[in-house]
């Protein structure tokens, strides 16, 4: 048996001066047991947190059932997004077409739930049976007087990343349709999904600096805010893999500049605040940012020092959705004395993998679109102690005696911002220091 298939070699490299450049942005290899999902999944996770919109999945039941309330994205108000609506296509619909069913479903759901907009996701077989979703959406939009937006997401039409783009295209339809007055020092927060209330932590920092939050896309998202997103002076983009396309489109269409930030780890969090303050060229704002950073550093560092002392010398494997987040995690782990020995992502970019190569210690394994066979072989080879990943990586880690931290949809503790860093350190400490490992050695 080979842990690594020959056709996967180009997507694996190591940190170091003369190692090869990693190949990425490729479709997954058939039979390789990729950890990725599909186009539909990419669009669904990005749009899901828009809480006052109806999300209707046009297809057989699976796609809707597996994504019901999947992400733990919190809302401060309506929670329509936590419902799973499906046209639940049956055999006769596949034979005779699902358009009538889709129309009926949309009409009844809009009447029953009063959403501010509706997103209609097309799934695999809809792409094949040729339902004209566009025309149904147009018809219902005219009838119900709310935006009814098709999301083109047949699973086979690309990778999860193409789903991000489909989501951004759906958002583009909304952006620019609102007519709210613009406010000074206003930003949009792109690419935070308010898992475990993380967005609210960030909003608090920005507000303390005197910044107006114009729209949050899509965490705790509202249709009205997204419709007015073009009124902001700046797009601040996290999770750049999913939201960069929208930021670029908004720059082109509305001239709104954007910047890439990360809210994970003290260093990146502080940089985010400084960069936003610098953008507005406002001394008072910069002073306030410095004050926040000083205050949080003073509060955090003594506590982190305790964890760092205990964790010094531990080794971590990181496998997450996007490579941008992986960069922050490597830095955040280093801050608490943990060395990253394996790092990878489902849908990373070449630029970011290059940064990772520079950032990591020589020999660190870097991998794109990995699978259980590879990941389990990598952690064994590098003798990693802790794994940072999502639900599908958790059993790989636990089964062979590694600690684990969920940095994906199912986290219940906020990991962004300064207090997020503290939570992260606490969780790494808890999983590394548990007495149970003595039984697994």
């Amino acid at each position, binding site marked *: *048996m*080979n*842990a690594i*298939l020959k056709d996967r070699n180009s997507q694996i490299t190591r940190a170091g001066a003369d190692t090869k450049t990693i190949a990425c942005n490729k479709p*997954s*290899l*058939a*039979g*390789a*047991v*990729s*950890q*990725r*999902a599909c186009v539909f*999944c990419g669009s669904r996770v990005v749009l899901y947190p828009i809480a006052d919109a109806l999300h*209707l999945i046009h*297809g*057989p*039941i*699976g*796609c*809707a*059932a*597996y*994504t*019901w309330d999947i992400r733990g994205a919190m809302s401060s108000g309506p929670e329509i997004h936590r*419902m799973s*609506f*499906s*046209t*639940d*296509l*049956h*055999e006769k619909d*596949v034979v005779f077409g699902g358009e009538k*069913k889709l129309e009926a*479903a949309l009409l*009844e759901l809009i009447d029953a739930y009063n959403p501010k907009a509706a997103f209609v996701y097309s799934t*695999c*077989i809809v792409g*094949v*049976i040729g339902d004209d979703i566009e025309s149904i959406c147009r018809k219902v939009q005219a009838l119900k007087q709310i935006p009814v937006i098709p999301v083109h997401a*047949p*699973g*086979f*039409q*690309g*990778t999860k990343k193409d789903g991000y783009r489909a989501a951004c295209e759906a958002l583009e339809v909304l952006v620019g349709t609102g007519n709210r007055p613009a406010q000074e020092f206003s930003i949009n927060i792109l690419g935070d999904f308010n898992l475990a209330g993380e967005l609210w932590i960030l909003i608090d920092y920005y507000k303390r600096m005197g910044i107006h939050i114009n729209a949050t896309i899509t965490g705790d998202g509202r249709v009205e805010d997204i419709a007015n997103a073009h009124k902001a002076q700046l797009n601040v983009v996290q999770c750049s893999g999913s939201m960069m396309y929208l930021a670029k489109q908004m720059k082109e269409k509305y001239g709104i500049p954007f910047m890439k930030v990360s809210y994970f780890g003290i260093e990146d969090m502080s940089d985010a605040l400084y960069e936003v303050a610098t953008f507005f060229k406002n001394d008072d704002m910069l002073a306030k940012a410095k004050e926040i950073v000083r205050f949080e550093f003073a509060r955090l560092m003594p506590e982190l020092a305790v964890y760092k002392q205990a964790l010094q010398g531990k080794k971590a494997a990181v496998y997450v959705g996007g490579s941008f987040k992986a960069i922050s995690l490597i830095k955040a782990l280093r801050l608490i004395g943990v060395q990253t020995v394996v790092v990878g992502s489902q849908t990373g970019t070449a630029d970011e993998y290059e940064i990772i190569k520079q950032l990591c210690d020589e020999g660190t394994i870097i991998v794109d679109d990995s699978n*259980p*066979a590879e990941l*389990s072989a990598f952690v*064994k080879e590098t003798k990693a102690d802790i794994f940072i990943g999502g*639900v*599908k990586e958790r*059993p*790989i880690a*636990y*089964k*062979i*005696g590694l600690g684990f931290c969920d940095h994906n949809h199912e986290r219940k503790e906020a990991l962004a911002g300064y207090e997020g860093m503290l939570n992260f350190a606490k969780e790494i400490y808890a999983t590394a220091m548990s007495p149970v490992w003595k039984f697994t050695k």
Partner: protein
Amino acid sequence: MELAINKSNTFTSTRNACKLCSPLGASLVFKGIEGCIPMIHGSQGCATYIRRYMISHYKEPVDIASSNFSEETTIYGGNKNFCTGIDNVRKMYNPAVIGIASTCLSETIGEDIPRLIKEYAQLHEGEQIPVFIHASTPSYQGSHMDGFHETVLSAVASLATEGATSKQINIFSGFISPADIRYIKEICDDFGVEYMVFPDYSDTLDNPHWKDYQLIPEGGTPVAQIKNAANAIASIEFGTIMNKVVSTSKSSAAHTAGEWLEKHHSVPNTRMPLPIGIEASDMFFKTLETISGIATPRHHARERGRLIDAYVDGHKYVFGKRAVVFGEEDMVLSMVAFLHEIGIETVLAGSGGESNSLKKEIDARTGGVYPNMIVMNNLDFETINEMVDELKPDIFIGNSKGYYIARRLKKPIVRIGFPIHDRFGAQRLHHIGYRGTQELFDRIVNALIEYKQEHSPVGYKYI
């Protein structure tokens, strides 16, 4: 109550489904075959979603390959991806068996998987290639339970071959927990009979801790036993609804593996409800006694005795309580019958399954003494949510996806079956036989006691 049903019937869409799709059921069965890796012929997402869904329940690695359809595959056919997928799975996993489930996508574009398998075998003639099992599981047909039973049938129909006579008893135990499967095996061992439990994911989805990563976990029903099923002395099948409506078997009029073996190989089949409760469990033990000619071992008779003792000790805590029960049809049916046995009235029994025979079956099992019980097929959770207030239930019994309704009503929920995504230890729960019934009874009694205690103005120290 009639009004509530009519109201829910006006929804064309499914709102918070109380079912999953067919390939998930197929994947479960493939995980229950020794040396088998499942491969889903369709988009990458199907495999990943199903893996994620199963991992969150079993807390175990669940590797499922995908042929990873692209736009090109969808237009020109999946032959290339199928072969690449199989090649790569063989290289990485070296499996004895590859279980292939179709999807809505591959079925809609008319993929002929038996032909793809045949062509692959021809291409690799002379090589030691894995055993292939194929199940037709388009997700627009039925639910995960239809996929489950269809796959059990497909595996048996494609592998079982007549040979030397055997004393094997085939047990097709349906969709139960790994702990339930281990318990059936313990019972059969105690009877001292030769048996096959299929599918057996008691190890593969509930492994001990490992030193090294096992790409294919040990355990599962051996292929040799499935082959031998044609020579068995008898089959026992749990479930009376199973995949009654959606049987896509083309080769035979039989709907289930037990029926198929009876029809084609004259293996007598006993179909019985999922053995939950004393009466249903008695039926299972009596059947084993009849087939084997051996009396129920003392150990199990004592377990039955203790269960009756517990029924007596606990009867007043449960009598007259009102339950809402939901999940897979056969699970719901047996749960309602068990609740009837202990004096709990089911006020709503529902399933996303579409056999349309749940009501008839429940009436038969409970003697039709609950004329007001609402029994619904093709049900979703939002319909339950809209109906429950006026039903005034005391307890919810079903999978964890109904939690939000119990939470809204501030009533206890006893989590059973699949999925249980918000609690620990789902793979270790027992549901069937005297032991499973005991565990369920204890959990239900305690849930009701805890509710009463917490809502008592003084609290109390003795029950």
